[in-house]
């Protein structure tokens, strides 16, 4: 058995490929792998081993970040399946969804302008709940129905929510400084 740098992340972490993921197992694998490959473990070894350690630790970090976050994991699954989700260019969404997005945006910018930190935090929590529903949908589409087309569309919706999440974070940060 040979393990190489280009192996897919699920294999690398010894996890079954899928949207639903055992976060504890992922974390255990991550730490066990870093214990082996991290450059600090090889600092006293020859250059060749140190370079290799740097590559590996970078790869393991990248894999962990990809699998840990739902949006990144979903995009990675589409990528592995060779589905071009046209994530950056295809912004055609249902009118209801777009209307909802506009309402969110307005609420965020109003709270920002009013300097209302509590309201922003409240929006944050509401957004988390909304994102959770979309994530449950994704789990069903990827793991139960294997409907990648529909999954791609749902991923696009999740991207919108992620963007909103960032905007709330930025508004909060701006109010603090």
């Amino acid at each position, binding site marked *: 058995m040979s393990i190489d740098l280009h192996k897919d992340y699920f294999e690398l972490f*010894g996890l079954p490929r899928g949207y639903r993921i055992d976060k504890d197992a992922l974390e255990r694998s991550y730490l066990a792998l870093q*214990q082996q490959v991290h*450059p600090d473990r090889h600092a006293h070894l020859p250059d060749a081993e140190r370079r*290799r350690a740097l590559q590996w*630790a970078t790869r393991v970090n990248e894999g962990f970040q990809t699998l840990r976050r739902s949006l990144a994991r979903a995009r990675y699954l589409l990528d592995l399946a060779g589905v071009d989700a046209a994530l950056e260019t295809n912004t055609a969404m249902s009118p209801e969804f777009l209307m909802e997005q506009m309402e969110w945006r307005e609420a965020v910018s109003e709270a920002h302008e009013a300097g209302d930190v509590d309201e922003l935090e409240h929006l944050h929590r509401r957004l988390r709940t909304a994102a959770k529903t979309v994530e449950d949908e994704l789990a069903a589409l990827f793991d139960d129905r294997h409907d990648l087309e529909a999954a791609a569309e749902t991923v696009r919706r999740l991207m919108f929510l992620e963007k909103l999440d960032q905007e709330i974070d930025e508004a909060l940060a701006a109010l603090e400084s």
Partner: protein
Amino acid sequence: MALLQLSEPGMSAAPHQHRLAVGIDLGTTNSLVATVRNGIAVCLNDAEGRAMLPSVVRYRADGGVTVGREAMQAQTVDPRNTITSVKRFMGRGLRDVAYIESTPYDFVDAPGMVRLRTVQGPKSPVEVSAEILRTLRQRAEASLGGELTGAVITVPAYFDDAQRQATKDAAGLAGLNVLRLLNEPTAAAIAYGLDNAAEGVYAVYDLGGGTFDISILRLSRGVFEVLATNGDAALGGDDFDHRLFCWSLDRARIEPPSAQDLRRLLARSREAKELLSHASEAPIVCTLGSGEEVNLKVGRDEFASITANLVKKTLAPVRKALRDAGMRAEDIKGVVMVGGATRMPHVQKAVAEFFGQEPLTNLDPDKVVALGAAKQANALAGNRSADEDWLLLDVIPLSLGLETMGGLAEKVIPRNSTIPVARAQEFTTYKDGQTAMAFHVVQGERELVSDCRSLARFELRGIPPMVAGAARIRVTFQVDADGLLSVSAREMSSGVEASVIIKPSYGLTDQEIADMLKSGFEHAGEDMGARALREQQVEARRLAEATRHALEADGELLEPSAREAIEHLLTELETTAAGSDTGAIKQATAALNRGTEDFAAARMDKSIRSALAGRNIDQLEV
């Protein structure tokens, strides 16, 4: 866990051989050096039994250099040539330095980083810091009785790339082999966590002489995982002194003083600040050059009120770090206080109120960073024993990006990414037949490039002429375990590849560094050639020893012919290293390094397999 021990890579190759390694806290106000002796981290003292070396360097008219307490005593008589708080100037241009008007120095603005004009000519902050590091290296070598294998040097977590690179170069000038740059709050967490077997999420609040850091870490089963860090690289105890100094000027109704008076009054202000940590009132008394007397008293509450906004200024980064970590104040199990400035009662009170708990003060805030650095140095040098099986996962403090159209910064690697990390982005040409492309690398959180720190500009040339949009130029950012960035660009679409690799610079050229290195050695009365030879021999022996160990442990991974080739290179290296030809030893070292690439890859694969196997066993046990 037994399976993991098959090829534990961090473990000592030869347990009987202890490599001399130190941790150095290069502070704004004081610096310390520590090492691990018999498994315990201890600070190394000077001949008078003092651990702290004031970070003060005086360039004397007779060509000599004094460092530490003696230099500090000269600051009022020779303020221009006596450099204090040089850390504030590391990797900084003139316009970046706060309160520059109340420093007594004669600055020379130079591209990238200021210089200070002294009686011995213009000095870069890198050279000044190197004098402090050299003093600590000599102290350590005298105390440990041998040459150091290497050092871990701590930097504020919120230091940017230029400041980190400047620190690394200063260490090079001081003749130190840098095993790792380590973030100060992380070092403190190691010292605290290992001593207390702590588990859970901790905050480290680190208010030093000139810098403020906040780090949120998760400690679990021997892994120190930094979740987020934030801070202010220009906020520290110095600012409290300065505030009190301005207050004194105002109260005593005196005009902006001479350089000597300024130093006197600043020193009295600092003493008053320190006294107020124990007393409710402190005097500020001094005689100015004009014969005028300053005779003031400051109360603890008054001091707290004139510096309240400085304390408040530390809490904004704390909130940001918590949010980036996805934590709330009540999730924090303990708050570790680091840095002499955290002794101020109103700082402790503000932190206690924010986190809703008393901060942990059962460790010496002045020493904890150096002690943590010493533990890390010991581990990196390969001295760790089986019971010291811990690992550190740190992050970058600031986002790294590229300039795009309209002077906007596009983030390539976001802040708080775990290092080492690499990220690639693709670009294309916008004109037919375009053969070159310019890139501008920046660091910071702001949207406009002009608000971020410029790290490097470079051009990729030799792109084969194609129609606009056909070229695929992949720009890769790699941040290593020191938090230092290198950037490469490569044209991917054609068979022809143009590529370039750059490291950000901060205003010192390689030639300048080489010249400083030479003059530094002359200054210290050391023979540079002899030292270079010794260093190369040490490096050769280190490599030979590590390779032998690797062959013993995993020799079966090699075909007999491959093993023979490595053994041949190894013998060659050992023969050369016994001689005195530095260049030849360097070549033989490089040859063995190249010759073991494949073997290194095979060994890494093996250890990863054992990690996965180890995990499966763990799961079975659950």
